[in-house]
């Protein structure tokens, strides 16, 4: 079923709110991982505000869908969302990087309600996510999902009804890490069709273009060769994102882990940051970018 224009508009507005919150976070800290944070905004917006099964009143609900942010330096985008959901207080958005803040420099499960994975050292999140997915398989084998979950999930279900699904957001540069491909093999072996990796393919690392630093192409073919179902979308197009996420639901039971290659732009939404492909922005670049962001996103 096609998604209504209304829903797409609403999610696009949400994405603007997320960008506004991110600007607030950067204003508070004076620096941050601006490029990779702005590039995942539509992806996390589609996941949190439409696709994922969550209980806004209980971040720890056992049947919630899990989001593993393997590129944990983009946690600013998640913080922006958690503040909207209400799991972290909005006034804390300005405390990023500060001691004792729930907004740690890299996502930290111990410090922040709603964060599933403490990351920062790249390349590990997909393995962790595979562990969660396998745990779901092991648990579901023994304890089928509750009646409530079955009822709730009818709109998704085909052959196999997962108690929860696991989403993992990876960076393109992060995929230079060998462990990502160890995890890819592992997920195929255990037929983790409840695992959906989303690659934020923003084409740039810190030192330059991802493909020049280490030739990662043919990227899509790599995932295919590892036995994954793969598709490509425009990672800033909400309609494409929600459509492809729905499609992955219909594929449960095929025994294949899924990879969504989301083509994105580093620093998306702020002209200065888009031009520079900058990973960390500092000095004038950040101040001017933040000024632009304030005007643009309110």
């Amino acid at each position, binding site marked *: 079923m096609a998604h209504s224009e209304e829903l797409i508009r609403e999610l696009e507005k949400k994405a603007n709110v997320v960008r506004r919150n991110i600007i607030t976070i950067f204003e508070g800290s004076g620096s941050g991982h601006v490029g990779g944070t702005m590039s995942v905004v539509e992806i996390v917006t589609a996941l949190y505000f439409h696709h994922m099964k969550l209980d806004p009143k209980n971040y720890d609900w056992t049947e919630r869908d899990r989001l593993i942010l393997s590129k944990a330096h983009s946690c600013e985008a998640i913080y922006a969302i958690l503040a909207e959901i209400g799991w972290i207080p909005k006034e804390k958005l300005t405390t990023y990087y500060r001691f004792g803040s729930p907004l740690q420099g890299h996502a930290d499960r111990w410090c922040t309600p709603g964060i599933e994975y403490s990351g920062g050292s790249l390349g590990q999140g997909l393995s962790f996510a*595979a562990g969660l997915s396998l745990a779901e398989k092991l648990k579901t084998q023994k304890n089928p999902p509750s009646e409530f979950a079955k009822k709730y999930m009818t709109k998704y279900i085909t052959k196999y009804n997962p108690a929860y699904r696991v989403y993992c957001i990876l960076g393109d540069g992060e995929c230079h890490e060998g462990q990502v491909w160890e995890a890819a093999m592992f997920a195929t072996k255990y037929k983790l069709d409840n695992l959906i990796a989303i690659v934020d393919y923003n084409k740039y690392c810190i030192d330059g273009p991802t493909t020049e630093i280490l030739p990662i192409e043919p990227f899509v073919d790599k995932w295919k060769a590892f036995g994954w179902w793969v598709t490509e979308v425009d990672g800033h197009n909400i309609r494409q994102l929600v459509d492809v996420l729905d499609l992955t639901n219909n594929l449960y039971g095929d025994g294949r882990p899924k990879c969504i290659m989301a083509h994105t732009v580093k620093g998306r939404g702020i002209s200065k940051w888009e031009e520079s492909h900058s990973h960390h922005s500092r000095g004038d670049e950040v101040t001017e970018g933040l000024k632009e962001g304030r005007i643009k996103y309110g």
Partner: protein
Amino acid sequence: MVKFSNYVEIGEPVATAAGIAKGVAQAAEKHDNMLALLEDLGFPGIAWFLKNAPDRIVECGIAEANGAAVAAGLAAEGFMPFIYGFAFATIGRAYNQIRQSILPDRFNVKIMAREGAWGGLGISHNYVEGIAATRVMPNLVIVNPADAIEAEKSVMAIADYIGPVFLRLEAGFASPPPLKIFTEDYPFDIGKAYTIKDGEGATIIATGYMVTEAIKASEILDKEGIDIRIINMSTIKPLDENAVIKAAEKTGAIVTAENHSIIGGLGEAVAAVLAESIPTPMVRIGVGDEFSQSGVITEEVDELKVHFKLGAEDIALAVKECIAKKNQLR
């Protein structure tokens, strides 16, 4: 004739691996969330899983980094994965995965990893850095059993404990066979040192296989009229600091013995306690600042024991040296 404490009855060596396998089977029976996570090296106690719960076996293959982070994910959902492998890979290669994916959130992962100076496999496998690599990491418990009985009991104890543990499989795995030391009813507690033998002249604080050599050293010293105390320090972290301080007060001379580098190991942990609380003469026995290499044990000679000076005679000499230091101070 040397007199030992309660629960100590020295006997012929018993295979430590059998003790681990027994402990694994009992723990797996008790905890139905326990998983065997393999890294293409088999698994002690796998027979129990194959027979009773094959779905609780997770084979990760030769991909230790992935294995450690997968284990963290499984633990996040309430499972208790036991990883088994060689420490150079399971700890050394996956160091960062342990630090990033397992420890910050205190995930209930148990790492059973083999290491030690002995063996024919050479520099790669004769890894003596595991304690140094892990002691510095917060939230991790390190246990190093000395014989088959303690191995069995320690597996059950770490399964009951909720949180990450490194179970160092060294005695009987990367060492000569350790003696049978403990009785069946020996009460093992994580974090508690056990005084195997009381004495006044000096204390040997040993861990793992070196407890066997310490016991042999006590027999040599006994003949010379030197009465020593032996402490089995099976938990390296958290260290039983009270036992160290008490031994220093009573005996005034401390020798540490470990099948590990003297850098970053038990010796340094004990030295730190002594230096801050009760400065006491001490000597460290262990592998010096060098890599191990291949070596065999024949009827004539144990090549690596001789090379690294890890034998009972070496410990006995160290004890006498330490007592001399103590007497100099008086």
